[in-house]
């Protein structure tokens, strides 16, 4: 980022630029604010004209209604476990494979790597039905492992890790370790892993947020409300014809707050994860 070096006079152009950006920011933030307003209002406030745009005092009551509808904290915990396990597994699989593709020579290496890239273009719903029956036949329907296993497949992770190992782990270091008699796995653990930890943060965020927000597969596999992840649980809030908006947005609000806090703390990491994930 370049800080302005000299102050300029406010021209019409700059004014328009600021207005446009401010409008974009307001429109981006407003639904968040409004979600908070609704989460603290009575349902009847919703029927008032003009609409209420200031917070009310029903924050606790609305959330209690959420708790009576869904196992909110249980679902939040389920999602957290799901995303954590998937992230750790993907980081391990990707870094190991990325290390192999970056630092080893073996027959069919390029063909295999291109194959991995090609698997990225298979649309997820193409295999949805067989995947469902695969999980069902393995007795994993309505279980967390049944949800997890699909997300272990992450070609982008291998691609990013190969790139990162290539760029940041010097060949000489690996050669030296080999001369010292290090096994390959020892090299991975003691040399490669510490160097690529920053890339773990990037890939970790990509994987964690993707799995956290994924809906189709979780919605397909999880049937019993006891096993719901937070996305499926939230979606079930509106799945009746007699909806209580304050209650629904209270659930959404409290499920989103942790995300917003984490995002604001690590926003640079989040934003760079997008550019690294797609620009390379």
């Amino acid at each position, binding site marked *: *980022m370049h800080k*302005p070096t000299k102050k300029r006079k406010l021209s019409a*152009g700059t004014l328009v*630029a600021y207005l446009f*950006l401010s409008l*974009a920011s307001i429109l*981006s*933030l407003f639904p968040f604010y409004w979600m908070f307003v*609704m989460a603290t209002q009575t349902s009847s406030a*919703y*029927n*008032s004209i*003009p*609409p209420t745009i200031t917070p009310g005092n029903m924050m606790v009551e609305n959330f209690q209604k959420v708790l009576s509808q869904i196992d909110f904290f249980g679902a939040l915990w389920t999602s957290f476990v799901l995303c954590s396990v998937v992230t750790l597994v993907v980081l391990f*699989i990707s870094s190991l*494979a990325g290390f*192999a593709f970056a630092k*080893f*020579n*073996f*027959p069919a*290496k390029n063909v295999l790597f291109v194959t*991995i890239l090609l698997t990225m273009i*298979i*649309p*997820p*719903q*193409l*295999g*949805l*039905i*067989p995947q469902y*029956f*695969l999980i069902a036949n393995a007795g994993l329907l309505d279980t967390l492992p049944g949800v997890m296993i699909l997300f272990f*497949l992450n*070609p982008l992770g*291998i691609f990013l890790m190969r790139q990162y190992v290539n760029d940041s782990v010097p060949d000489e270091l690996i050669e030296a370790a080999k001369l010292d008699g290090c096994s*390959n*796995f020892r090299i991975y653990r003691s040399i490669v892993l510490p160097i690529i930890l920053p890339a773990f943060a990037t890939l970790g965020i990509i994987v964690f*947020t993707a799995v956290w927000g994924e*809906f*189709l597969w979780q*919605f*397909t596999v999880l049937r019993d409300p006891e096993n719901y992840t937070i*996305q499926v649980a939230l*979606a079930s*809030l*509106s*799945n009746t*014809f007699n*909806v209580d908006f304050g209650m*629904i*947005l209270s659930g*959404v609000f409290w499920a989103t707050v942790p995300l917003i806090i984490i995002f604001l703390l690590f926003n640079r990491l*989040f*934003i760079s994860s*997008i*550019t690294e994930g*797609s*620009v390379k």
Partner: protein
Amino acid sequence: MDSAYQKEKKVKKRRLSEKKKDMVSAYLYIAPFFVIFAVIGLYPAVFSFYLAFQSWNGLGDMSFVGLNNFRIVLEDPLFWKSLYNTIIIGLMGTAPQIVIGIILAILLNAAFLRFRSFFRVTIFMPYITSMVAVALIFSVLFSDHESSLANYVLGLFGMDPVSWGSSEWGTKIAISIMVFWRWVGYNTIIYLAGIQSIPKDVYEAATIDGASKFQQAIHITLPLLKPFIILTVFFSTVGALQLFSEPTVFLGASAFTRDEAMTVVMYLYRDAFRLQSFGTASATAIILLVIIVIFASINTYLTSGIGKKKRRE
């Protein structure tokens, strides 16, 4: 001499066995991906092609029905309605993102800009909310009630309230707006990264030649941003054709009974998990794959064509 020769031989031997060891290690390290891919990626994809030619309710025996599933799907008006919905929502939800995203990225990169991080973070923030959360928030913002915020705003402009959850265009517009809202910041960030990768001296040279900021944006930024635009057009096209969560959650209980906002993936899901017609659902999956390939190719081709024309001028 002799011992030196033997030593060399030993080293060579060690190197050879080391090479073998490395090979084994490498295959071992990439094996997990391929094992998982074979089981939950490749096998299901191939099996979908098989299922598409079978009639199956998920429990009994399958029976081969040839191309019948494809005929059933392609003769079903609801399939065409869902394809039409998907394309309309995709167009309205993603095309404006590209234009607005580029403008926002150029502004965010402007040298005079203050509070840059603030603007960047706020514009990106919608992306961190899950699709389910976005759909629920918008289902309240855009509810059928006369008092919903969307209808109130329309009222300020003297327009009649719209049934956002149950009318042909209301549902499509509401869903398009939520897709736009969630993704425009994401595209902006990608464009911003693209703009920042353009060397500064190109702009300096243009400024010396007397090009205005606007001319620079049109003649330098846009052409050099082309690879990034192609990338986002590709992602947006593929993503838009797979739209499922937003309409499903937005419509709630009526998601699979109404057709105003049913998308192709929702049609597929309904066939499979509501009507237990797994053969036709698989046929739909194959048809969708073909549609995705066609649309992604066309859009990518068109996007890369824009710059070429400009260069010829």
